[in-house]
């Protein structure tokens, strides 16, 4: 069986984190999201994998190259829609295939459930269905599917994972998969609805924290770096090669820390935290429920919770993030959110900067001693 993974889309609603990579390449628990999709396929013995790339395609290709599994790469030059992306792979598809988005998490169990069913969609209930293709079912078969409706008829949504056949291309007219599925249903083809066990999508950047929490659940404890004998490390904690944990640092798992990091002394790392490689966390800082990407430095006395910090950031001493709710305008739509800070790549903030429910773009420089509340700071700004 073949599988087609769509990883061409930027993921505009996850900006600023998608400036240097498509959404599928955002690291969660220190691996790009697409890696988990590939895992789920390989666990089911599906190795004939085609990945459709587009936005920042070299980033995806380079990552796929590092895997020992040979993966075919197909380019979608313009990102016109999911069906258009799939069509780029049409000539390589021989018969039955699975279609999966590269930027969602799916467990191997669910893939096992759907892979042997002909013409099927994997569905799951979601509290805000109108962000997805909403599905109604009758007798286990799809009755209707509507993409992002204003008023959702049910809480059941399509996960974007389908088991299809080459015949499917006969129904593809527009650029959307859901439209083609609708066509198929109207033409009288039975499409089974299979319920997913565990599926998660990150629509907004703060959703990445939920995904992170989920992916850290089964983290095995690995200790490869050097930890001070005066550090207290509990639970499932992964410490990468070359990382040093200073004295009196407390780490409670699940926590993953990459390679060559310097943590502490006297730091506190709380559960559900992913820290990339070559990250420095200076003394007396506290990190919890956060994603900190590669090469970032968090100076002393900082408090980073419920936050995503991009690559190469330098946050000066006493930086703090405070969790708060607020309404932010994402891609033109006012959206309710609750988090500390979402910080893009290469952001520099001065001492005593305080973030509350705030999205900071890439390459932003922020002077110290400031409060930033419920705001989106655009890429490249200088905040004085």
């Amino acid at each position, binding site marked *: 069986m073949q599988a087609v993974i769509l990883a061409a889309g930027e993921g505009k609603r996850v900006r600023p984190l998608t400036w240097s990579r498509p959404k599928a390449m955002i690291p969660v628990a220190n691996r790009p999201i697409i890696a988990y999709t590939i895992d789920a396929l390989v666990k089911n013995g599906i190795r004939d994998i085609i990945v459709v*790339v587009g936005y920042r395609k070299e980033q995806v290709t380079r990552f796929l*190259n590092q895997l020992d*599994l040979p993966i*075919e790469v197909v380019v979608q030059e313009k990102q016109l829609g999911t069906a258009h992306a799939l069509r780029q792979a049409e000539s390589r598809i021989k018969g039955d295939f699975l279609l999966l988005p590269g930027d969602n998490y799916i467990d191997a169990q669910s893939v096992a459930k759907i892979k042997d069913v002909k013409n099927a969609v994997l569905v799951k209930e979601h509290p805000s269905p109108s962000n997805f293709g909403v599905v109604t079912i009758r007798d286990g078969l799809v009755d209707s599917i509507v993409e992002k409706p204003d008023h959702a008829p049910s809480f059941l949504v399509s996960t974007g994972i389908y088991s299809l056949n080459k015949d499917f291309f006969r129904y593809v007219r527009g650029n959307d998969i859901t439209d083609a599925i609708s066509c198929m249903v109207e033409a009288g083809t039975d499409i089974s609805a299979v319920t997913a066990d565990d599926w998660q999508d990150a629509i907004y950047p703060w959703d990445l924290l939920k995904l992170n929490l989920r992916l850290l659940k089964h983290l095995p404890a690995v200790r490869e770096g050097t930890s001070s004998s005066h550090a207290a490390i509990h639970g499932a904690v992964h410490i990468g090669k070359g990382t040093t944990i200073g004295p009196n640092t407390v780490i409670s798992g699940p926590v993953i820390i990459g390679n060559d990091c310097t943590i502490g002394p006297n730091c506190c790392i709380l559960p559900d935290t992913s820290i990339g490689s070559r990250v420095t966390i200076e003394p007396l800082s506290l990190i919890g429920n956060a994603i900190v990407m590669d090469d970032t430095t968090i100076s002393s006395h900082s408090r980073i919770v419920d936050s995503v910090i991009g690559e190469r950031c330098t946050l000066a001493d006493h930086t703090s993030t405070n969790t708060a709710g607020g309404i932010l305008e994402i891609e033109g739509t006012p959206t309710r959110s609750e988090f500390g800070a979402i910080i893009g790549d290469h952001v520099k903030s001065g001492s005593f900067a305080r973030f509350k429910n705030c999205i900071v773009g890439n390459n932003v420089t922020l002077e110290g001693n400031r409060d930033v509340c419920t705001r989106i700071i655009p890429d490249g700004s200088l905040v004085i």
Partner: protein
Amino acid sequence: MCGIFGYIGRRQATPLILEGLKKLEYRGYDSFGIATLQSHIGIEKHKGRISEYGDRIRLNGTLGIGHTRWATHGIPNDVNAHPHTDCNNRIAIVHNGIIENYAELKKELVAKGHIFRSETDTEVVVHLIEEEYAKIPDLQSAVRRILPQLKGSYALLVIASGADYLIAARNGSPLVLGIGDNEYFAASDMTPVLDYTERAIFLEDGDIACMTRNGVEISSQGQPVNRKVELIDWSPEEAKKGGFPHFMLKEIYEQPLAFFNTLRAIDKQSLPKFVCQSPSVTVVACGSSYNAGLIFKYLLEESCGIPVRVDFASEFRYFPPPVDGLIIGITQSGETADTLTALKQARIHNCRTLGITNVLGSSVSRTTDATLFMRAGPEISVAATKSFVAQLAVLMQIIDARSEGRYEDTLMHAHQAIEEILLMDLSAAVELCKSAENIFYIGRGPFYPVALEGSLKMKEISYIHAEGYAAGELKHGPFALLSPETPVIAICMPGETYGVMVSNIKEVKARGAPVIALGCEGDQELPDIVDQFIPLPKTHPFVQVLTSLVVLQILAYRTAVALERDIDKPRNLAKSVTVE
């Protein structure tokens, strides 16, 4: 990274294996070897490339294994080359991967009386199998019983006299089986198998396959398992490039990692004393490596005040003595004839010599007192990209060692700045370059050699006549060539050269030539006076050298793509020049 290939069937194995290994050479090519089985096991292994020795191999048999190596631990020589055998030459194996606990296993085996011939980690595996095979002469179960003792990654192929089958095992390293008609293949990837069959089985971690002429049986944890036969229809070329349209682009994207890995691999504490203390340095090199040497000159003289002389290796021998101090020879392949001759010349003058190369165990390491290896991995594209950046990593690490670790922090994060460059959109600059017949590159200070390297890349792959000049030299002659049809690419970074560079650019503009300037982001003046401004991140001068260089590589690549040139194999050029 290494490549392995195995065959069992009715045809003669040796030519098939040689052909297969050649296709796997992109995974490594410093030494290779073959073992076949007739009444007993015959082995031939050599340091060097298959094309050099392959024709001389005369091994008969229709069952055999082969290996092409890219050494990372243990130098490449005939002894360390695979296949490895047990004490009695009854079992032969090839291995791709790393056995992490080989030291302890080796100790136990030596205590039991096994004789080790090589320095490789692989050899413990064959001796372990020998132990079990002596107890029960069933090769498959012997392999199965020893695998749990191995920590690390492996793809193994095993043959033994008295066993007319081939055993394949995999854990963590790639291994694929090709299914022919009464013939079977095993290889690191599909590339070499595709000539013979399209049917493949991808083994999973923990799988052991027993391949006979009549079929393949696969077991995992002692239980037989069924793995699906898949039809593969990619072209071998595509498979190797892993989705990139050209090796050059693949290698450009590997640069951040090549730089970082090389930095990590050069331990400043263990640098030879004469490297850290020599009062003067001479660099000999050719082509891109010469440009790397020139960058080194500017940076070392500036930061440590040590005189550095840089010479073309091909010209070095015509200089009469005196030469003294340290002589550094830089060569990606380690085989560049001119550089080797120059280094020999230096030894005649009693100088200490240091080689910098990407190929462990190449000729340069036998010619010099010490050798530093860059960790760029095999480079296929003729135009050097990642090896150049890795050379700079070695040289910058030497500078850092000689200036008491002043640059350590800067260098450790430098690869991230390169990442940022890889995201840049240069289409407007490409538009300007692709229609030009001549392009001039100018820079000052360390950016002068960057200009040279940039123009070299442009020449090599786009066939546009490109010349690099020290910006001040432009007025002394080449100025006469400027016209609205000759774009000038200027590297104009903040620092002491900035002011003069700006006036040079204005002079060029006054002659009507379009200017593409590489500058620092946030520059207020440049964008107004030049036609194309390419902003680079604000960083340390060392990193600026790297970032501006990578921009010029990508510019050359994109221009060549726009002109539809044969990028990986430019006309008239060879990857390493082994004649004078």
